[in-house]
C-alpha cells in the first residue's frame, strides 16, 4: 500500500496540470492540427485538402519564407540582446549601492504599460518627420533616420520598442541572483577575486537554470510577436517587419484562411520545437542544477 502510494505521488503533484491540459488545451490543439488539412474560410464549410496547405506554403507562397526569415533574424538579434540587457540590469539593481529600489521600480514600470499604449508612444517618438526623437536630434544638428519608413531601420525600431518591456525578464534574473548566498561572494573576495571574476565564476553558473528558461521563452515569444508590430509598423515599411506571427494572424483574421493559418502555426510549432530541443540538448553542458550533485550525476535532466 505504502509503496503504491509512493509510486503515484509524483502524478498526484502534476495532476492539476494534466486535468487542465486534457480539459482546456488538448481539444483546441487537435482541432487546429486537423484544420490545417482543410480549407476553411470562416463562414463556409471546411473542405479537406490533405497536405494542400503545407504544399502551398512551401512551394507557392513567397511571403511564407520571407516572413520566416524576418522572424529568424529578429530572434537572432532580439533574444541575446534582450537577455543581455535583462541580466545586466538585474546585476546592476542587485548591487549594494544606494537607491537601487528606485531603479528597480523604474526599470520595471515599462513592462507594466499596456501594449497598445506602448505602441502609440513609440510611434510618436519614432515618427520620422514629426517625431520627438528626430526633432531632438535635429536640435543637435543630426538628421535622424526615417525609423518607420526606411526598411533598413524599421526592424531596429521594433527592437528598440520591444526591449522597453525587458522588466519581466530582469525580474526573473534578479530573483535568482538575490537567492545566491552572500557568503559565496565574501569568500571569493577574501581570495582576491575581482567583481568581474566573481560574476563569471559564481553568479553566472548559479543562474544557468533561469538563463535556460529565459532563452527558451524568449525564442517562443519572438516568433509569436504580433501586437507590437501590428500596432507600430503594421508589418511595413515595405513588409520589412512582416513577422511570422503577423503573417499567421493576417492569414487567419484578415484573409479568413483559417485552415492555412493553422498550417502556418504548426510549421512554426515544429521550428520552435526543434530549436527548443537543440537548446535542451546542449543545455546539459552549460546548465548547472544543484539538485544533481556528485552522487546523482549519471542522468541529467533536460
Amino acid at each position, binding site marked *: 500500500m505504502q509503496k503504491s502510494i509512493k509510486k503515484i505521488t509524483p502524478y498526484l503533484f502534476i495532476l492539476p496540470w494534466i486535468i487542465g491540459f486534457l480539459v482546456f488545451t488538448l481539444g483546441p490543439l487537435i482541432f487546429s492540427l486537423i484544420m490545417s488539412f482543410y480549407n476553411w474560410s470562416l*463562414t463556409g464549410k471546411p473542405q479537406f485538402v490533405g497536405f494542400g496547405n503545407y504544399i502551398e506554403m512551401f512551394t507557392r507562397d513567397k511571403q511564407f519564407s520571407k516572413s520566416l526569415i524576418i522572424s529568424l533574424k529578429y530572434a537572432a538579434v532580439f533574444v541575446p540582446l534582450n537577455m543581455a540587457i535583462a541580466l545586466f540590469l538585474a546585476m546592476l539593481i542587485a548591487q549594494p549601492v544606494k537607491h537601487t529600489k528606485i531603479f528597480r521600480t523604474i526599470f520595471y514600470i515599462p513592462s507594466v504599460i499596456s501594449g497598445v499604449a506602448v505602441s502609440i508612444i513609440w510611434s510618436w517618438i519614432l515618427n520620422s518627420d*514629426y517625431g520627438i526623437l528626430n526633432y531632438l536630434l535635429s536640435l543637435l544638428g543630426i538628421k535622424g533616420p526615417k525609423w518607420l519608413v526606411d526598411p533598413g531601420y524599421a526592424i531596429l525600431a521594433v527592437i528598440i520598442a520591444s526591449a522597453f518591456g525587458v522588466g519581466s525578464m530582469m525580474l526573473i534574473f534578479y530573483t535568482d541572483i538575490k537567492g545566491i548566498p552572500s557568503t559565496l561572494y565574501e569568500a571569493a573576495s577574501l581570495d582576491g577575486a575581482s567583481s568581474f571574476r566573481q560574476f563569471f565564476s559564481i553568479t553566472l553558473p548559479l543562474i544557468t537554470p533561469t538563463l535556460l528558461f529565459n532563452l527558451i521563452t524568449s525564442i517562443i515569444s519572438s516568433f509569436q510577436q504580433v501586437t507590437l508590430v501590428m500596432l507600430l509598423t*503594421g508589418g511595413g515599411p*515595405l*513588409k520589412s517587419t512582416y513577422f511570422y506571427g503577423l503573417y499567421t494572424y493576417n492569414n*487567419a*483574421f484578415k*484573409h479568413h484562411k483559417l485552415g492555412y493559418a493553422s498550417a502556418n502555426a504548426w510549421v512554426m510549432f515544429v521550428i520552435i520545437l526543434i530549436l527548443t530541443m537543440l537548446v535542451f540538448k546542449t543545455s546539459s553542458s552549460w546548465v548547472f542544477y544543484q539538485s544533481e550533485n556528485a552522487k546523482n550525476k549519471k542522468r541529467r535532466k533536460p
Partner: protein
Amino acid sequence: MKKKIAISCIALMCASMVLSACASGGNSSESKNGKVKVRFASWDVAEDIDKQQILVDKFNESHDDIEVVLEAYGRDFDTKISAGMGSKDAPDLMYMWNYPAYYEGLEPLDSYIEKEGEDFKKNYYSALWDYNSIEGNIYGMPVGFTTHALFYNKDLFEEAGVDLPGENFTWDDLRATAKTISEKTNAKGFAFQMKPDPYDFEMYLWSNGTAYCDGKGDMKGKIDSEGSQEVFKMFQDMAKEEIAAVTEGNGTDEFRAGQVAMYIYGSWSINSLNEDNMNYGITKLPNFGSKPSVSILSSSGIAMSKDSKNKDAAWEFMKYWTGEEANKARIGLELPVLETVIESEKIMDDSTYAPFYEMLKQSAGYTPASFIQKNWSEVSENLSLSFEEMFNPSTYRDVKETLEQAAQQ
C-alpha cells in the same frame, strides 16, 4: 498522505466554488426576465458608445418582449466577429462594411424589406444599397456613410496668400497651390498616405476614367493603363518635389498640427478638428479636368447573423436603428442616410457636411474592386505593397514598372 489529498481537494473545491459564485449569467438567447435577448456588436469607441447605449435603452424601454444588449469592441471588432462566426456564435446584429468577407455568415434581408412595403427602401440614398449588397442580395441596412473630401487649413492658405479652393478645383490647381504654400510657409502644401488602403485609393483612378480591374476582375489593361499611371505618377511627383508630405498614418495628426495645408479623408476627423477649434474648410475632391471627381464610399451598415435565433426581434431593432429618429440622434456620429432627415435637419446647409453629400451624388455607379475580386483581401495586400513601393521615399519605385508587375498578380 491522506492529508495531502484532502488538502488538495479542499483547495480545488474552494477554487471552483469561488469561481462559480463570481460569475453569473449565461449565454442563453433568453434573458432572465423572459425577454428575447438580442446581441448587437458595435465598432465605435468610448463616448460614442454611450450615445448608442442611450438609443438602445430607449428601444428596450418601448419593447416589453425584446432586450437588446450593446457590445463594444473598438479596433478588435473584426477579431471578435471572426471568432464568433467561426464558432457559429456571432452576435445577432453587428455593424458591417466588409460584406465581401463576411456575407456568407449573414442573413439576406430582401424578404424582410419587401414585407415593409414599396416606400421603405426609397428613403435611403440609392447608391448606399449597392455597398450593402453582394450579388444582388441585400445583407445590411445602411446606417451611415462617408465619402472622401478635401480638407484645407484656411490659416495656412492666408499665410501663403493663395486662394481657397473654388468650385472647379483641379489637381493642377492643387499642385500649384501646394507649391506656393510649401515655399511660403513652414508647412507642406498637401499630404497623402505612404500606404493608402487600396480600397480608398481606387477613387482617384475612377476620377481619371479607369479602375483597378474590369467587370470580370481582370487587372491587365486597367491598373497599368495610361490613366492609372498618370495618377500614381502625379502623387509620386508631388512627394519628390517636396510639395506633399508622405504620412505614416492617415494624415489627420499632421493636418491638426498645422504641418500640412491640405489632405483628403472621410468625415471621421471632423469631430476632432472641431474640438481643436481649427480654422479649416472642406470641399469636393479635386478633379482631373475633364469630368467631375469621384469618391469611394465607406458605408456602415447593420447586418444580421444567419445563425441568429431571434431574427424577427433582430429585424425589429434594425428598423428602429435605421429609422428617422435614430438617424437624427446619430448626427455628429454618422452622416445620416435618409433623404427625409437630410431635408428636415437642413444638413445640406451645413458647409462641413454638404461636400460629403455632393461627393455621394457624383459618385454613383462605380463598383469597387473589392466587390468584384473574389480574393480581394489578398489582392489588396499585394496592391498595398506596390503602392508603398512607389510612395516610400526610400524606394520611389518606377510607376510604370510597378503597375505592370501589379497587373500580373
